[in-house]
């Protein structure tokens, strides 16, 4: 399996030179968008725990350098951590969906959160501080990965605007009418009053005294609760709908947009199961099959499935074929496989396609419609059987089995695809 060393004396080189290059830190391993999201997640948890730890103290220490210049430093330290954690939790979810807005929010929020350890400066603040410092360059470096826009429907936008509008209207209005309210004196009181009213809590400590103020309050209640309800409904409803869809066997649209460097398997044939075993540990796999029963079985085994027709270009676009490492066409019917190959080529002329021919005579045809490599599993099995009965198992190289089309020969950079690894394993099994 491994190149034997040139001479037995050099056996130690296997031990000390396991890779061509060993570096201090593999920056690719820790500098991608995923690590960035993970570190922000860690910041969120640490912020919550540090905040909770601060809350549990009788007196909050403010020994840090920033404490002197920050107003209300003690309140900030006491409640800041936990409140920031909730905000960051939402931001982390957004970041994991690669939302641009979440990225912007994170870039603004994290420096503010950094004030917290700088105010209190206790040993327990250091993990949070280090995590924030680590997360920031990661976020900046992966700026371009967070490019998903938040697409809101007109109704959602309207609901949001009316909600914000009612808030502003209520705050400014009640502050203007403060003479006609009991115990409403400052801007802070106005905000408090509006939120308590819109949320239909109504403590009753601030009360309108004149008919004008009462009418005004009624308008906030009607408009505000209305806008609040509509905003919640329109913003959260679609999320619930998409969860429902996911429960019925399809990947959600947001899950699909996150796929990259994955392997798309079109059709479910005899060899697909072994194929999944081989590929699944190394790459994300998406199986596209029209058969609902197969799809639900696969779903149970936690394989990503799209229950759609693999010969449909729009389905292939949903499966992010352009970002895929490769496409495997292995359906039970060579005719439909050929159509699927043509569909893939229509969507992306460059992606590597490997096909499994069910009959030997179709091998060349599948290569002809655009597959980069075609394998005939039955031929492999037959040859192994033959060699096995004669007691003369020779190694079968990948080249013996794969019909490579010209496109691949001229393109040496194309990445190794799973079927070749599969044949490799076959030859290993004889040991």
């Amino acid at each position, binding site marked *: *399996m*491994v190149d034997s060393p040139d*001479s*037995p*004396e*050099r*056996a*130690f080189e*296997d*031990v*000390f*030179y*396991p*890779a*061509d*290059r*060993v*570096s*201090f*830190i*593999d920056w*690719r*391993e820790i500098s991608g968008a995923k690590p960035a999201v993970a570190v922000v997640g860690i910041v969120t948890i640490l912020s919550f*725990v*540090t905040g*909770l*730890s601060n809350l*549990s103290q009788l007196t909050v220490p403010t020994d840090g350098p920033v404490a002197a210049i920050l107003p209300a430093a003690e309140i900030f330290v006491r409640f800041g951590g936990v409140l920031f954690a909730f905000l960051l939790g939402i931001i982390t979810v957004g970041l994991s969906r690669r939302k641009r807005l979440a990225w912007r929010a994170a870039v603004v929020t994290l420096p503010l959160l950094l004030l917290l350890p700088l105010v209190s400066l*206790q*040993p*327990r603040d*250091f*993990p949070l501080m280090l995590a924030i410092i680590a997360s920031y360059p990661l976020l900046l470096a992966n700026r371009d990965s967070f490019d998903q826009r938040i697409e809101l429907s007109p109704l959602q936008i309207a609901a949001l605007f009316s909600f914000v509008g009612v808030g502003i209207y209520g705050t400014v209005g009640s502050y203007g009418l403060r003479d006609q309210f009991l115990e409403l004196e400052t801007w802070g009181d106005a905000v408090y009053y509006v939120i308590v009213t819109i949320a239909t809590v109504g403590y009753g400590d601030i009360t309108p005294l004149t008919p004008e103020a009462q009418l005004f309050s009624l308008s906030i209640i009607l408009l505000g609760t209305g806008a609040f309800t509509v905003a919640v409904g329109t913003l959260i409803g679609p999320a619930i709908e998409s969860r429902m869809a996911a429960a019925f066997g399809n990947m959600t649209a947001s899950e699909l947009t996150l796929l990259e460097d994955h392997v798309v398997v079109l059709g479910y044939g005899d060899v697909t199961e072994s194929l999944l075993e081989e590929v699944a*540990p*190394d790459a994300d796999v998406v199986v596209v099959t029209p058969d609902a029963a197969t799809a639900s079985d696969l779903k149970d085994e936690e394989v990503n499935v799209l229950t759609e027709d693999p010969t449909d270009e729009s389905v292939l676009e949903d499966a992010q074929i352009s970002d895929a490492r490769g496409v495997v066409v292995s359906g039970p019917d060579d005719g439909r496989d050929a159509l699927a190959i043509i569909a893939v080529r229509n969507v992306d002329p460059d992606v590597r396609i490997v096909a499994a021919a069910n009959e030997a005579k179709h091998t060349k045809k599948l290569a002809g419609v655009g597959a980069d490599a075609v394998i005939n599993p039955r031929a492999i099995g037959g040859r192994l059987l033959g060699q096995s009965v004669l007691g003369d198992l020779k190694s079968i190289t990948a080249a013996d089995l794969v019909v490579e089309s010209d496109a691949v020969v001229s393109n040496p950079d194309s990445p*190794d695809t799973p079927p070749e690894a599969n044949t490799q*394993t076959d030859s*290993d*099994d004889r*040991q």
Partner: protein
Amino acid sequence: MSTQHTHSLEATVASLLIPLFLLSGIAVLSAFFFPTFVGEAVTGRAWLAIALIFFISGLGYLSLLPYADGDDDSESPVLLTIRRERLRTATTSFLAHHRPEGLILVVVVFLVYLLAQLIIPAPTTRAVSAAADTVLSVGGPVVAGIILLAVLYCLLLLLGPWGAVTLGGPEDEPAYTYPIYVTLIFTAGIAAGIVFWGPAEALFHYSAPPPAIGAAPESAGAIDGALTYSLFHWGISAWSAYAVLGVPIAYYVFVRDAPLRVSAILVPIFGAAAADTPWGRLVDTLAVFATIGGIATSIALVSEQFLAGISFQWGVTTGAIGPALFILALTLIYVLSCITGIHRGIRRIAVLTVVLFVAFGLLVVAVGPRPFLIERSAGAIGSYLAGFVPLSVYTGDGSGWVAAWTYWNWLWWFSWAPFAGVFIAAISRGRTIRTVVFTSVIATAGATMVWFLLLGGTSLHAQHTGRADILGAVNDAGGSEAIVGFQLLSSLPLGELFIFLFLGLIIVFMVTSAGVSTLVTSIIATRPGVAPSTVDIVFWGGFQGIVALSVLFVGGAETLQSIAVLTGGPFALLALVAMAAFLWTLWKSERGHTSIVRQAYDALPKIQLHHDFDNEER
């Protein structure tokens, strides 16, 4: 097949480690963030278990992560070929890998020694101590002379023409990038020195000044002397001991195709097959002894220190079970790091070690007594440089101080030299001798000396200004050096954070050294040309742990020191042989290289021309 099987085995182990790590991590975090609540709920003994599980699972998982670079097949295939074979087959291949003297002799000698310690403890201890004392008093000055010679030898290699010799063929490029190269050598070459003696050594010289300094105990004058002596004991001299073995081994292995083992130093005397001659076998067997003796001493020291830390932080005494648990945990981690290969376990833990080391140093600078540190460090560096030769040839005033401190220290370093030298050699393919010497002597000694100045200086400051009575605490603890670090750190601002970091440092520094020593022992104990299998590594790793544990139990600290002396002694002499033989080789076969001095001189006229040209233009 085998790879797949191993992968699934690794995946199983990794999936077991994750929940363990999370649970113990939550426990550690909550203790850190909510000391008052958790402190009441969990006892000190539980803390020892939780802390060990935390380190085992975290570092183990780190080791098991797959290597991203390159394809799957390159994942140290030899180390990981666990096949579904019978135990007998594994044993047979294990025995076939080893030479009888490399395996049976080593095991039998250690067993006999331990049995003697158990049955007739007093005479054995006396005999071993007497032998060690003789080595120290008679051989001590010789060892000091060899160390001084080694420093000069390294200077010659660094500045002289032979620095330009490349270790390997013309097509050999260094496979390790420079940062990881320094990191691996540094973390493999030192362990207990950093964490155990870093805060303590200067303090002891301060309370009982070395005769060469001649200042009154605990006086201001003793401060400079104490720092100077720490630098002397842990600086250039100490690290030269590795290079004088490592560079010749690397040369004979990569230029002359000798097998990678310590006996490669004998190639100029016995030819390329030196490893198969009786002398070569003797040297390799001695190297196994030295490595196990040296590492066992360090493991025992850090185990004492870690438990002192746990006891300091949570006020709990663990009895005999403490060291046993600690060494078991340590052994698990370093064997795992070693099995997963140098590019996975060992590399990642080494990186973690250096990151923690630098972060800790920066934190000490941030909260430590900066003006004091700068002033005293500058003074100590000055007197170290000025007094280097006098200190190196100083043989004492008859009080035995030099033997107890300096000579003992040199011999401890020599007991590490075989494995550290082989390791330096092994990863130096494609580098020039100058780079190897610069890295393994100047760069590593630089980092060590900065550490000793920082920690030693801070503890001297705390003691001298009376901010913390560390020496008093040491006396209360029965003269144990192990608690110095924790006493010091708790007196600093952010003390709790420092103690947490320090406990981590103790583990990772020891794991990196012990992992490398396991790997190297598995190579030099097996036949030339056999890559060690997982079974070999597990055996030698386990053996090191068992030796450390049993020596700690039956012998105690004194025996440990004697063992380091006795196993290190031969390598002081072998270093001399290696230096002479290698010089002979260089003289015969490596003419025509230019020294760095010559290069600098040659570069001068060009600068002048440039200067003249500028003038003309004007």
